[in-house]
């Protein structure tokens, strides 16, 4: 289903479109929330609020515009609100939470997180896994080969294809920075 079709269903108040939008954008929205809050439970809270708020504001959404950036804008606003809530001392006098991000990240940084997560989701599973093991887990190519049970050459070629494909998906970010 195209993003425009999904957006039209969303704007028309089709509850099923919320589920489809969740399947497509929950990962990027969660990335925005994690970037701002650095805490999975708070981030999950922010994701829930984002989709419910989006649903309640569905009639205000213009389906001619992309759904992703609209959800991103709601997500960032919600995440900042959650951050502010968590930074306040509780009514019962508890200390304010100290393990959320020190300050909400910049618009650019959270937007980049949304974009990178969206691009990673579009990769084939095998290529995305090589990127995860390389960049997030920090494995060498020989370690990845052992982990996945494939030859090192296969890891190298997958990594090359994955980075090439990722660069293609993020080409619009390149335009912004150039």
């Amino acid at each position: 289903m195209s993003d425009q079709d999904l957006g039209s269903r969303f704007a028309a108040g089709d509850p099923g479109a919320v589920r489809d939008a969740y399947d497509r954008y929950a990962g990027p929205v969660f990335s925005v929330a994690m970037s701002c809050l650095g805490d999975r439970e708070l981030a999950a809270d922010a994701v829930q609020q984002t989709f419910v708020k989006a649903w309640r504001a569905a009639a205000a959404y213009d389906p001619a515009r992309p759904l992703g950036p609209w959800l991103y804008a709601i997500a960032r606003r919600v995440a900042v609100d959650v951050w502010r809530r968590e930074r306040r001392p509780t009514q019962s006098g508890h200390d304010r939470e100290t393990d959320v991000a020190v300050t909400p990240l910049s618009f650019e940084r959270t937007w980049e997180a949304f974009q990178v997560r969206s691009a990673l989701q579009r990769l084939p599973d095998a290529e995305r896994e090589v990127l995860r093991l390389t960049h997030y887990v920090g494995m060498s190519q020989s370690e990845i080969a052992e982990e996945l049970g494939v030859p090192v050459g296969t890891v190298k070629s997958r990594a090359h294809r994955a980075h090439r494909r990722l660069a293609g998906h993020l080409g619009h970010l390149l335009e912004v920075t150039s």
Partner: protein
Amino acid sequence: VTREDRFAEFLETGVLPLGFDAGDPEELGRVRDLLSDEAVWADPPAGLAERIMAGVEGDPGASAAGAAAAPAVAAAPASAVVPFAARRGRRLALALGSAAAILAVVALLVLPGDEPQGRQVALAGTDLAPEASATATVESRGSGEWIKLDVSGLESAPPGSYYQAWVWGARGGVPVGTFHLRGGTDPVILWAGVAIEDYPTITVTLEPEDDDQSPSDKVVLRGALPPGE
């Protein structure tokens, strides 16, 4: 060599290729740094989608506003949404377990010839079971919500696993019974100790036989009581 090729090389090595003129190296560095950031790899917790859908499907005001293409509505205040984790450290599994212990009367019985005149909820198969469907007939009785689940097109649960039915509302999910369908597709009778109006979404998950009491993300059937019923 295109600019995207060089961008790919940068993403792979972290070294800006000679002659790469794609702008601010700091910004490109941030994009590459994100690849090692937990934020872009972490997944939302299992059950969050059901919780959101329960809030959406149990919110007739919002649904009506959308269906009628009403003028723009303001976003609801954050306080209107029950947080996924209302208290730090409270885990979903614990919440579900407590709710189950306190509220749910869980039973799995077969009651032949006992047909209620209750409300009906259509459940559709998900991508995990696209051929499956079910009708849940719900009737309020003295001891709780009596739910009869007529299932079709759903394969029996593989050995080492079972199906679990849940009702979901703004407060979370409550398990209402388990079954396996290995002996046929007789109607499955479930009992819930919570009001279906407050927990209007019904799901069925495939669960492994382990000690994890939280719902798996393998939802095979999903449906919701229509708003207002």
